[in-house]
Structure formats: structure tokens, C-alpha cells
């Protein structure tokens, strides 16, 4: 009896080991992705917006490979933790491009684990505007071409950028710190593109003529063509309310004032008092537009439309899902078109 029991335990453990190994082997085989060549510079990006910026910057440039960290399928980037796959990729990576501003909660762990990994923090670069040296001319040129309003004129200039951004950032307070969804404002997104390009070109003396600089010119020109549907005139200085803090930057990009914010995601428990305060703010400030994300805002959106005169518009934040190429421009155009449609 006793012998057979030990035999049983041994067989059990061996068979589990075998089954696990075989299963894992085939799983890995099925999911095998191409691995980096050693002579290529592996650029990892933390989230879709910086991924889109980076692939456009490095489009057709030899010697670079861009890879996005795995994206959370639900919820907010802030509380995302890295998978083993990510850790493996990061250990091979040369550069990590992050949005910054607290968006990547795991960033400190990554810095501690890979001290040699070069990190391009777009938020920090814009905040301190160190990253603009040598790149201002493109933006100044653009400014000459399009006669922008006061605030966008101030954007490309080094000193003013930092001042303006710090103001903006302190305006939109967030539980995780400042509101770091800066890519939702296309002008700040252009700054991100430039700071990434600057970070990637650091060691290159002839940077202005490089393929990267050419790509940046092309991409920022394309970004300039984002169609705001005249919203920057139509809703300028109008009051809006938002159900996701990312849309604070959407509102800012068309000059609207955010008078009420309720940040919804699947882990967020809203209290009754918060909802009634939010609805009161909508009524009191005569809010006509509410920006929301469909997945988490639709039930609250219905409630708002029922209880107030405001119209709820569902917009994309670019955080979830797979994007490629010029999708940033498509998504923003679609967002502005959606806003235009309910007006």
C-alpha cells in the first residue's frame, strides 16, 4: 500500500511536469514572435499614443525595431503591471519610450531593474522643454505658415512651453498625480513626437538631415491637418463636462472649459453624492456637451441625458486596442466629427 502511494505521488508529479512542458512548448511555439537582431536598436514603447508617434518617426529608418509593450485590454494604464513577456523584451531593449507623468506606474521598477535602459519620458521632456533644442525650427516654421492663436504660438518656444504646460498640468488634477493624458491634445502630441525624435537622435551630429527629422516633418505636417470641424470656434469657451480625464485635453484642444469631471473606469466606485454633484454642476454651468468613453461611461451617459439637457458624446482615448500607422489622426478626426454631429 505504502509503496504504491509513493509511486502514485511520483507518477502524478511527473505526469504534471510532462503535461505542463508539452503544453507550454506548443503554446510558446504557436505564439512565437520574431526576435530582434542584435544589430538593431530595439525601441519599446509603453502605450499606443507613444507607439504611434514612434513608428511614424522611425518609419522606413533602418536599424530600428519598434515594439509596443502588451496593452491592458481593460481599465486604465495607470494600474497596469508588466507581464513576463514585457520583462523579457525590456531586458533586450535599448530604448523605452514612455508617455510619463505617472501614466506608467511600473516605471520605477523598470528603472531599478534595468539601470542601463535609456528612457525617453515625453511628459518630462515637454515639462522641462530641454528636449526642444535643435528642433524648434520645424515648429516655428509651422507657426509662420498657420496663423495660430496665442496659446499655440507659445507652444514651440522653449521657455513658454514649460510655463504653459505646467499650468495646464496643475489645472487638471488627478488622483494619480497630474493628468498625463497629454496626447489627447494634438498640439501637445506634436511636442511628444518631437521629444521622442530628440531622444532617439541624441548621438547624431547631422540630425537635421537625418531620415528621422524628415519623418518628423512629414508626421507633424499630417498632424496639422487634423480636422477640428470648426469646433475650435463653435465651442470655444463653452462649458463641457467629462467622464474620463483624458478628455480634459480634448476640451482644451478646442478651447472649451471643463467645469465638471468624473473619472470613470471599471474599478471606480462612484458614490451617490458624487453623481448628484456632477449633475448639479452640469445644470448650474449650462453644460451642453459631455465627453465620455463608451465602455465605462455609457450607463452614466444615459443617466445624464435623462436628467439634464446636455448631450453625451462618446470618444476614443486610444488606450485600448491595436492601432497602427496614421490611426492617431483617424481617431482624432473621428472624435471631432462625433462632437460636431451632436451639436
Amino acid at each position, binding site marked *: *500500500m*505504502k509503496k504504491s*502511494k509513493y509511486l*502514485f*505521488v511520483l507518477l*502524478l*508529479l511527473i505526469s*504534471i*511536469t510532462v503535461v*505542463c512542458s508539452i*503544453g*507550454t512548448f506548443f*503554446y*510558446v511555439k504557436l*505564439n512565437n514572435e520574431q526576435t530582434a537582431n542584435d544589430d538593431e536598436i530595439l525601441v519599446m514603447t509603453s502605450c499606443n499614443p507613444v507607439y504611434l508617434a514612434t513608428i511614424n518617426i522611425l518609419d522606413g529608418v533602418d536599424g530600428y525595431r519598434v515594439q509596443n509593450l*502588451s496593452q491592458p485590454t481593460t*481599465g*486604465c494604464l*495607470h*494600474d497596469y*503591471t*508588466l*507581464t*513576463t*513577456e514585457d*520583462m*523579457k523584451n525590456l*531586458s533586450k531593449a535599448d530604448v523605452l519610450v514612455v508617455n510619463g507623468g505617472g501614466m506608467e*506606474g*511600473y516605471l520605477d*521598477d523598470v528603472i*531599478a*531593474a534595468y539601470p542601463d535602459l535609456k528612457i525617453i519620458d515625453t511628459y518630462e521632456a515637454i515639462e522641462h522643454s530641454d528636449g526642444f533644442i535643435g528642433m524648434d525650427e520645424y515648429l516655428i516654421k509651422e507657426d509662420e505658415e498657420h496663423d495660430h492663436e496665442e496659446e499655440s504660438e507659445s507652444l514651440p518656444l522653449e521657455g513658454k512651453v514649460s510655463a504653459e504646460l505646467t499650468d495646464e498640468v496643475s489645472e487638471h488634477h488627478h*488622483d*494619480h498625480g497630474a493628468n498625463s493624458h497629454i496626447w489627447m491634445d494634438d498640439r501637445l502630441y506634436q511636442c511628444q513626437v518631437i521629444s521622442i525624435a530628440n531622444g532617439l537622435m541624441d548621438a547624431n551630429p547631422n540630425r537635421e538631415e537625418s531620415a528621422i527629422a524628415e519623418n518628423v516633418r512629414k508626421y507633424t505636417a499630417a498632424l496639422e491637418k487634423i480636422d477640428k470641424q470648426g469646433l475650435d470656434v463653435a465651442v470655444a469657451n463653452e462649458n463641457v463636462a467629462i467622464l474620463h480625464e483624458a478628455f480634459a485635453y480634448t476640451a482644451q484642444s478646442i478651447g472649451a472649459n471643463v467645469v465638471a469631471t468624473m*473619472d470613470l*473606469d471599471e*474599478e*471606480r*466606485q*462612484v458614490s451617490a453624492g458624487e453623481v448628484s454633484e456632477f449633475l448639479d454642476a452640469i445644470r448650474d454651468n449650462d453644460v451642453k456637451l459631455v465627453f465620455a468613453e463608451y465602455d465605462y461611461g455609457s450607463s452614466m451617459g444615459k443617466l445624464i441625458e435623462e436628467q439634464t439637457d446636455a448631450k453625451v458624446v462618446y470618444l476614443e482615448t486610444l488606450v485600448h486596442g491595436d492601432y497602427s500607422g496614421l490611426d492617431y489622426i483617424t481617431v482624432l478626426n473621428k472624435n471631432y466629427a462625433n462632437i460636431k454631429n451632436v451639436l
Partner: protein
Amino acid sequence: MFNEMFSYAFMIRATIAILLISPLFGMVGTMIVQKRMAYFSDALGHSALTGIAAGVIMGIANTTVSMIIFGVCFALLLNYISRKGLSSSDTLISVFASCATALGLAILSRGGSFSNYSAILVGDILSITVTEIIQLIVLFAVILIFWFVSINRLTAISIHATLAKSRSMQVRLMEDAFAVLIALLVMLSIKWVGILLINALLILPAASSRNISENFREYTYFSMIFSIFSGVAGLFVSYFTDMATGPMIVIIASVIYFATYIYGKDR
């Protein structure tokens, strides 16, 4: 394949951590199952939330400290109240656990910021640091010493408390010490295992071992073997398949449980 795996510092640290935590889980688990304290350890796991909340309120940067302090107090309080015997102990523990969880959730969800702490629900063994491994080594030594000194007395108490008392054993002291030990183990490992699954790791190996063992020695050894095996196998599988480690360990431990259950039933 394995060479590549151990070229990553995080995998080496995670493997060491698993090798330290899993035998402890297997060992302490046997006594938890024997003393029917599964509810108790579950409640302790949930109280970790309140511990973190207390730390946040008092501004303690290292929430592990507040978690341990709270966990030890919680365990002693639970023991004290269940001795009073006002209502059955599973009810009492449920009440305490829900109360602690609710308190923790309420405080941590202030301003909707609970998502900052959601990592603790699932746990993340890959982010373990060297300092934390040293903590685990100390804990490993403490539990091992305690185990060798008092396993016989603990067993006696778990079988017949009154009889043990008549043999002039300090039942209360032993029970409290054991509760504090569980609290330490749970609080120090909860960050890596996660609140949702920590009890599974404590209970499953011991329960599987109970299905097939005939004496206490076998019971303890099998439990430790199952625990280490599922821990290491779970970590490796999760590494290659890119899935969360904690759940993978529990899945393997569950398979062992069902296999031993079927074997034990037919015996």
C-alpha cells in the same frame, strides 16, 4: 531554454522567493487544515487591505509594516473573541473579515483611487526585490525554529485541547503564537501571491496531502512537496506562457488536489 530564463534577474529573484515561500505554505498549511482554520487565514488575507489603508492614513511609506502590525493585532483579536464563544467561530470570523475588508476598501477608494491598490488583489511575484527576499529568509528561519520547537504541542492541542491543557500545556499561548505566525506569513507574502489566491496556496497542498497520508510525518512532507512543486512548476509555466504566476500555481495545486482526492477515495 532554462539558461535564457535565468539570465533575467527578476526570474532568479522570483524563483528564490517561491522556494522560500512555498515550503512555508505547505508546512503551516497542514496545521491550518488540521485546526480547521481555513476561514481564519482567509480573513487575515482580506485584512491586509485594512492594514494598507491604516498605513496610508498614518502616512507610513512602507505599508508592509502597517500590514504586519494590523495583521498581528487582527489575528490576536480574532483568537480572543472566538475564545469568548459568544457565537460560532465561522460566523465571527466572517463578520470580522467583511468588516475589515469594507473598512479597507472604503478608505482606499477615497476619491476613486482604489485602482492604485488593485495589484495587491492578484499579486506580482516578478517585482520582488532583494530586500524583500531577505525579509522572507528571516521569516523562513523564524517559522522553521518555531515549528521544530512546538510542533508536538501544537498537534496535541489541535487533537484535544482540554487534554493538552490537563498536561499543563499553555494552550492559549500556543494558539496565539501560531496565529501571529500565520499573520506574519500571510502579510509578508500577500504582495507576491495576491489577496484573492493566498488562501488557496495555504490550503490546497495540505488538503491534497491529507487525502493520501496516513500519519503526521507523511502529511507534512507531502504537503511541502506539493507546495514546492506547484510553486516552481507554476512559475516556470507562467514564464513561458506569459500568464500571471499566482493563478498558474493555484491551477497546478488544484490538479494535484483532485488527483489525490480520486486516489484517496478509491483506496
